[in-house]
């Protein structure tokens, strides 16, 4: 039901030409389409509790939406706002922050994102390099972030910082700041995958108050880790959708393309690659649907809540590989046209790589699993 509605809407608003319009802009999405999503579909409020004006649905429903967005390559601040910003507010926000920001997100008047990775390009606790110092009743934030999804356009940014001299999981704090706070300098980073925009953000003596702090100073790693894991499940869901779409495009194209007097889909070399692609798409979905159930329990309670770290890494490690393999096979099976700018296959190929690299690639997540199993 949710899936059917999503497909119908996305087929309408996320056509190839709409995607390309969004890609060509620095903002990375068409404001009018985002407003339709927020006001007609109300998707940005999908898992926000009803007390803040949200729909109060769960991660399972959210993951269905993300899978379809991945399939249709929707260019929007949905992922950054819902899967980074909203999750951060739900997991770590104070009552006042939730009341203020979640309500604005529900109204469609605020987009949000999370900035935690510095120049080192890591995805674990060491990623956090920006610092916080205390200055009387105020805090001073300094440092630089890269690879921040929609960081140049978001209205609210959750910043991860650490106490000076701290390392690893110690000394980490989260602040929720208006993106226009003085000292916050944001610039768009042009990217190979143009369907999701990234930004660099510099904090220069940014002076904030306790009202901006989320939770307790220096103790935020468990919350940040959970936010990252929830976002990891979300990326995997988009990847599963992309793995399915690259398969569908390939089957459709090979059925139409005639060589040697017959559709190339009839050649066993083509069929077998397509079969492997279907295997990857289905296995990716199985991983994601399970991870979604775990994420739901991690957010709202349940016996599987403590499986989140494992389920997220299982899903991300498989879906990253599965999507990339399917996208690269899709180019190969499209032949020459797969190499053109005109056909959409390369958009998926590029998105597959950028989503693989974001929040840790397969090898990174396998190492996390190895630590659970072996250390």
């Amino acid at each position, binding site marked *: 039901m949710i899936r059917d509605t999503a497909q119908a809407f996305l087929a309408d608003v996320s056509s190839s030409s709409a995607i390309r319009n969004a890609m060509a802009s620095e903002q990375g999405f068409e404001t009018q389409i985002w407003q339709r999503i927020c006001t007609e579909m109300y998707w940005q409020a999908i898992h926000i509790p009803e007390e803040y004006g949200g729909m109060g649905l769960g991660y399972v429903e959210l993951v269905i939406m993300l899978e379809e967005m991945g399939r249709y390559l929707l260019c929007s601040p949905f992922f950054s706002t819902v899967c980074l910003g909203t999750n951060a507010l739900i997991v770590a926000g104070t009552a006042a922050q939730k009341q203020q920001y979640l309500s604005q997100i529900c109204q469609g008047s605020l987009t949000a994102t999370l900035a935690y990775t510095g120049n080192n390009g890591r995805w674990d606790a060491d990623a956090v390099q920006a610092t916080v110092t205390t200055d009387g009743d105020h805090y001073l934030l300094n440092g630089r972030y890269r690879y921040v999804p929609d960081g140049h356009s978001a209205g609210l940014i959750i910043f991860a910082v650490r106490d000076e001299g701290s390392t690893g999981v110690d000394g980490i704090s989260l602040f929720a700041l208006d993106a226009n706070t003085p000292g916050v300098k944001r610039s768009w980073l042009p990217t190979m995958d143009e369907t999701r925009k990234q930004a660099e953000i510099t904090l220069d003596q940014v002076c904030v108050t306790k009202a901006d702090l989320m939770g307790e100073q220096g103790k935020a790693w468990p919350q940040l880790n959970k936010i990252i894991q929830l976002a990891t499940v979300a990326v995997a869901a988009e990847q599963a959708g992309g793995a399915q779409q690259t*398969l569908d495009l390939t089957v459709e194209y090979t059925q139409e393309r005639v060589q040697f007097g017959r559709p190339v889909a009839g050649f066993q070399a083509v069929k077998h690659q397509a*079969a492997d692609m279907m295997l990857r798409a289905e*296995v990716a979905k199985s991983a994601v649907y399970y991870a979604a159930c775990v994420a739901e329990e991690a957010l709202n309670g349940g016996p599987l809540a403590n499986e989140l770290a494992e389920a997220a890494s299982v899903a991300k490690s498989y879906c990253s590989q599965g999507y990339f393999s399917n996208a690269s096979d899709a180019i190969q099976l499209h032949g020459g046209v797969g190499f053109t700018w005109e056909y959409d296959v390369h958009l998926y190929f590029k998105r597959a790589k950028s989503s693989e690299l974001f929040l840790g690639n397969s090898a990174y997540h396998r190492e996390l*699993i190895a630590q659970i*199993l072996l250390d």
Partner: protein
Amino acid sequence: MKISFSPEDEKFRAEVAQWLTQNLVGEFEQLKFRGGPGDEHMFPQARKKWEQKLAQDGWTCIGWPKEYGGRGCSIEQQVIFNEEYARAGAPGHVGHIGEGLAGPTLIAFGSEAQKQKYLPGIVAGTELWCQGYSEPGAGSDLANVKTKAYFDEAKGKWIISGQKVWTSLAHESDYIFVIARTNPDSIAHKGLGFFLMKMDQPGIEVRGIKQLTGTSEFNEVFFDQAECDADDIVGKPGEGWAIAMGLLGFERGVSTLGQQMQFHNELNQVIAIAKANGNDKDPIIRQRIAEAHVRLKIMRYNSMRMLSDEGDGGLKKEALIYKLYWSTWHRDLGELAMDVMGPEAEILASAPYNLTRLQAMYLFVRSDTIYGGTNEIQRNIIAERGLGMPKEPKIQMN
């Protein structure tokens, strides 16, 4: 998707686990973790006795309807039973072909007389069955069977001649179900009959096939004017293919979680070895162990999805990829096991060719990607049924 079982089903799980703990003792202790795939030739008589022990308390054929001696268990309960069975290390079911294939076929397609005659022995664990499908010229092209059947009016019996191959448990079995050509002029899947035959008769000879493991779970079965009674054909002559394929429809994935429990045990052995010999610090081995774990986890999620899924027009795509997925996973595990062991992997348990459990696994998994539809046949099926791509062209050889 369903990610856990109901409280009633969990109660059933506890009941199964308790029964196994209480009964897998004494003379049956030696059977623990034995007799599974790759080890089916071991302890056949003791495993038959175990089968009868299960039967006494109603733990055989639990998915069959009660009227035929089963328990009428739900799919979920069957899955749970198999999972607990594997967890306890209970031995490979020596009666699994009767319980999983012969019995369900008779329940679906057999006459009342056939059901009365054959089902009780399967439920009781006293009569074992084997399957006579593959032939030297009918492997992936299963419909190409050459074994012939004709009805001898004078004797009032069906007379069968030909050869079957890759028949597991043939030398232990009391009966074999056979597809054979009733119309000598027919080709492919037309003109076949489905026969129920007694193994102990002059016209049937069983020879073991020595496999690359050095052991013989599989056999050749030769039929030279072998006989069965007029009423031991299931359905009518010519319906054999439909009946044989009808079995495939019974595969609901009830054994998947049990199989995965066995995989889990094997992976744990590999992990234990890596920790003991220090290879758990090797970054590449770490990646490969994690990859095996990731894919085994998802195998379980995929099975849970199969259980939850109503199917889209009867087609469950996650079920269609399952054989290709698990067989490839298991093959990779064999290679990982060898690499984790290092040079020690080469050393046999003893001469002349007694393999360790992991060596046997490593070698036997080469058959996983071949039997029950090779990986190549699986990919054809996935592409054609799952993706609607063109069927392989039929080439007439003249």
